[in-house]
Each structure stands twice: as C-alpha cells, then as structure tokens.
C-alpha cells in the first residue's frame, strides 16, 4: 500500500461516478484524437492536392512575377529557362523542374468563344510528378512535347461543346501585344476539382504556348518538385542563390506561400476545431470538478482521520491530484481504444463528405492515426483533470482537522 494504491482505491470507491467521469474523458480524448486525425488527413490531402495539381513545392521566377499581374504575356518572363532548369536540376534535393508559360485568351470552336486560363508545360515530367494527367475523364495526356494538343477542363469543354479529338482555335496576345491564334486538337478532358478553375482550365505543350505568345525561350516560372516536401523552406534560398551565382535575377516562393486556399482552409479548420476543443475542455472540467468535489465532501471525516494520524496537508492534496490523474489516464486509455474502433468503422463505411465551397467533388472521409492528436488529447485531458482536482484537493488539504472529524 502507498499513496498511489490508496488513490486508485479511492477512484474505484464510487464506481458509477468514476465511470461517468471516465466516460466523459473517454469521449473527450476520442473527440480530440478523431478530430486531429481527420484534420491531419484533410491538411495532408489539401497540401498534396495543392502541390500535385500544378503548384509544385517551390516556384522560381523573375521577382516582378510575384508582385502583381502582367499587362502582357511573359512581361516578367524568365529568359534562358533551359539553362536555369538545368542548374536547379543539379541540386540533390530536386526531383523535377517544370517550366511553365502562363497565358490567358479566348478559345473558340468556330461559333462560340470562351475565355481560358492557359498553361504551357512540359508533358513528360508533368505526368510523372503532377496529378493533372490523372484527372483525365476522356482522351489522353500529351504523347510528347511536340504535340499540338490541349487538355481542357471538363466544364470549359462543355461550354465550347467540344470533346477529345475535336479542333479548337486559341487566341491570345503575344509578348509584343499583338493578337495571335493557333489551332490545336483537344487531346483530353480533365475533371479539375475546383469548379471555377474547371470552367477555365486549359493546358498545352510548351511549344504550342510558345508559338501562341511568341515566348522566344522565355517561361513564366519554373515549378520545382522536391524529393522531400519538408525540405521546401530550406531548399528555396539555396536554389535561388545558385541561380543568382549564374547571373539569373530570380525570386522564389514555397507552396505554402502560394497556396492561399490551403491557408484559408487550415485557418478555418483550426478555428472550428479549436472552439470545439475549448467547449470540450469546459465540459470535461465541470464534470470532473463535480466528481472531485463530491469525493472530497463525502470523505471529509476520513480526511480528518488521515490528518490526525499524521498525514501532511501536501500529501492529502497529492492524493486528490493523483485521483484526478488516474481518472485522466484511465479515460485516455479507454478513449484511445474507442477512437481506434471508430476510426476503423468510419474508414470502412465509405462516407463521402460534401464538397467545400468552390470544390466540385466531395471528399471521402478518412481518419488518420495522428500521433500528435493522441498526445494532445492525453495532455489536454490530464491537464483538465488535474485542474479540476486542484480546488477540491486544496480545500481538503486545508480543512481543519477537528471540523473534518466532526463532519457527519
């Protein structure tokens, strides 16, 4: 027998009440663990989607490119892009360098013209490192860099009333501000998850884009895919410095700086779940405080006896805090089991969440095992239970012995 075993027995003394409080802790822990797992899965999915839908881990371009809109195509273009790409590709952290030409214009099927947001790209590395090629609902990705084709967002294709194999004409202004047009074949249609983008998405090979805007070897930017996503912040200054040393005047941004949508969703989720977490903590705190106060009140005479026998006030306080800790740890253990069970059920019933604003497809519900959420749940529940035990523990430790012994 020691103080710990006495605390364990005190917790077990009123089983029903301890089970109810433990149940609240189980619920609280499971909620934190599951919400954390869901958020982690959402953030991971959104991050990967952002990176693999064209952003890459880093983007490198002329510094003016990042400062505002261009009045003409490639106004702030990067010259000698092949050399710059080769320099970047030498860095051991770099998996692929994807040159891009951004342009805007009108696509026409002869009878109807629809505005588009165009990207000229190198189809081989794009298909290997990005997901756009996997989003095709019909047709095929570009066979090689010389193909005179376009991939359209399915909503844009619908507006133009074209399908894979049809011909369209692209109209855009060149770098000199002259109106230019090229013919292209629709190679494939892609289901772009963001609705507004799906209505404007157009991808083509660098050669078609270059002809259309008269790029003359310039690109808008270089998207860089790294071997390890976590290296982005570290790699960026190094890559910019290596280009600077070769005479390029460039700037760069990480995917996180470029992905405004990701940041907004993350902030929104953290706000919602943070508020829910706060409510949860208050509920657990009140339930646990009620339990501990009742336990202290019921055991007043016993506390007086223990004090009379020579127990120091600090030991009485420690005993009550230990009881809170035991309840928290037992509840967290139960919560971990419950959250793992719920996770298995949720991940196997094939639930799809409704699409968030601006996104055309719902997201399949999947809850990750996110160790940090489990650790956060444990810390949160332990801190809450210890806080809930603090006042009753302090009160029990300070009680007058003779008043406690006379308590009925």
């Amino acid at each position, binding site marked *: *027998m020691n103080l710990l075993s006495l605390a364990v027995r005190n917790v077990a003394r009123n089983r029903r009440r301890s089970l109810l409080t433990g149940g609240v802790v189980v619920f609280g822990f499971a909620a934190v663990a599951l919400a954390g797992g869901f958020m982690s899965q959402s953030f991971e999915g959104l991050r990967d989607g952002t990176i693999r839908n064209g952003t890459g881990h880093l983007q490198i371009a002329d510094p003016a490119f990042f400062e505002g809109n261009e009045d003409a195509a490639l106004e702030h273009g990067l010259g000698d892009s092949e050399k710059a790409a080769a320099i970047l590709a030498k860095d051991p952290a770099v998996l692929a360098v994807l040159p891009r030409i951004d342009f805007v214009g009108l696509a026409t099927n002869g009878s109807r013209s629809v505005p588009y947001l165009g990207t000229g790209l190198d189809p081989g590395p794009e298909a290997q490192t990005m997901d756009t090629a996997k989003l095709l609902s019909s047709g095929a990705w570009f066979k090689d860099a010389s193909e005179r084709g376009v991939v359209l967002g399915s909503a844009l294709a619908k507006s133009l009333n074209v399908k894979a194999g049809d011909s369209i004409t692209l109209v855009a202004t060149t770098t000199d501000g002259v109106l230019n047009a090229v013919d292209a074949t629709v190679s494939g249609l892609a289901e772009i998850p963001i609705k507004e983008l799906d209505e404007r998405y157009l991808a083509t090979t660098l050669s078609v884009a270059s002809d259309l805007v008269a790029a003359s070897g310039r690109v808008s930017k270089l998207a860089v895919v790294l071997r390890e996503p976590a290296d982005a912040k570290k790699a960026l200054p190094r890559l910019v410095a290596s280009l600077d040393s070769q005479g390029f005047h460039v700037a760069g941004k990480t995917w996180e700086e470029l992905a405004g949508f990701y940041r907004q969703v993350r902030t929104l989720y953290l706000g919602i779940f943070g508020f829910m977490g706060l409510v949860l903590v208050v509920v657990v705190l009140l339930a646990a405080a009620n339990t501990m106060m009742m336990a202290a009140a019921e055991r007043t005479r*016993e506390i007086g006896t223990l004090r*009379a*026998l*020579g127990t*120091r006030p600090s030991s009485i306080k420690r005993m009550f805090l230990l009881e809170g800790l035991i309840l928290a740890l037992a509840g967290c253990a139960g919560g971990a089991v419950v959250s793992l069970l719920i996770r298995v059920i949720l991940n196997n019933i094939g639930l799809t969440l409704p699409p968030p604003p601006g996104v055309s497809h719902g997201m399949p519900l999947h809850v990750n095992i996110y160790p940090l959420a489990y650790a956060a749940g444990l810390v949160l529940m332990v801190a809450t239970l210890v806080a809930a035990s603090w006042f009753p523990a302090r009160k029990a430790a300070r009680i007058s012995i*003779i008043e406690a*012994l006379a308590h009925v």
Partner: protein
Amino acid sequence: MSAPILAGRGLTRTYLLGETEVKALSGVDVTVSRGEFLVLQGPSGSGKTTLINLLGLLDRPDGGSLDLDGRPVAALDENARADLRRDRFGFVFQSFNLVAVLTARENVEYPMMLQGVAKDERKRRASELLASVGLSSKEGVRPDLLSGGQRQRVAVARALANQPEVILADEPTANLDTKTADEVLDLMTSVNAERQVAFVLSSHDPRVVARARRVLTLHDGRIIGPAA
C-alpha cells in the same frame, strides 16, 4: 514521578457557534505522564473532546501554553505538528474512523507508511499488532465487514502502530455494547500495562472511569476535580 510528556497551562479554547462565542475550555491546567491511564470525565459540552484535541495537537488553543517534553508546540507549523502526531501519538475515535478502502492490516500499516517503514516490516508489525488485539483472522477484511468491537480493536492496533508514547481516545466505548466495551477497555488497560503507553480517554461511562488511575472532571470548560 517522571517529567510529564504533555503539560498544558491555562488552556483556553473558544468556538463560534453561528454568531455566538462558546467557551469550550477556560484556563485548564493538565499534565500527562509516561504510562499513566487518565480519564477525562464530565457531561456533554464540558470540554473533554476539546481538551483531547488540544493534547493531541489536532487543534490549537486560543490561550495558555502546551509543552511536549518541555518544549512549547504553539509555534510549530502544520507539517511539524503532523509529524509529531505520527511519531508520538496514537488516536482512537468514537466512530472508529477506519479507512474504508483499506483492509484491517492496511489500516494498521498506514501510520507506518507515513513514517517510511519498509513494506515487509510494515506487514510484519501490522500482523503482530492485529494478533495482539485478537484479530489475526481478520487481516484481509475491510472495515465494513467487521463488527463494532472488531473495528475498535483495529483502531487500537492502528494507534499502536508507530509505538506512540500517548494514545488519545475520545469516547472510545460510546458506540459499543457493554460486553464489547469491556473487551476494548481490557485491551487498553493491558496495552497500558505492558507497553507503558499513556492513555488519555474522554468518557462519561462509569465503567471507563472505574478503570482510570487518574480522573479529571470537567464542567463548563473547567477542571472541577481532582486537581491536574
């Protein structure tokens, strides 16, 4: 006669009952010597329990002084008083006051645990003490399954756990039937005789008073005889 273990001079204690001041003790002089068997008698409200509480360092007097082995205890902090209670005193209560979640043996072990006695030694001594009060067969039994007399005998064994010099017992037989009360008193007198532990009992039971070697009679917070 040896120097007293406890010596109280002019002890006073006043309580607030609602807004009314109740003078529970009014200038009491008392001494407790090694190995004596002292009974405090008097009607309810005479101050017996208050005096027991002051002598056992469970409460502090409003006035007067209390010395333990000739040293004043008034200035001691709560921890020091707790340590003195643990090491020098044993307590027996009217309602037994055993810890409900501990077995009989564990209840006896508890004061030893506070003193830091090793686990095996604690168990051995607790078993011996329970045997000495005739409860060997009840070591693993929790208090709610013991009779009143058995509980009080466990309480006596617990009071003896740290080999105290004084055992303070407030109305120890009040909740016991006549036969059991006699058994508990027999136990206390034999412990007093064998171990030279001083007993201070409060009671208005004539059978308890009859066992006393010294009796103090209290009335309205004063000792009215015989002299301390």
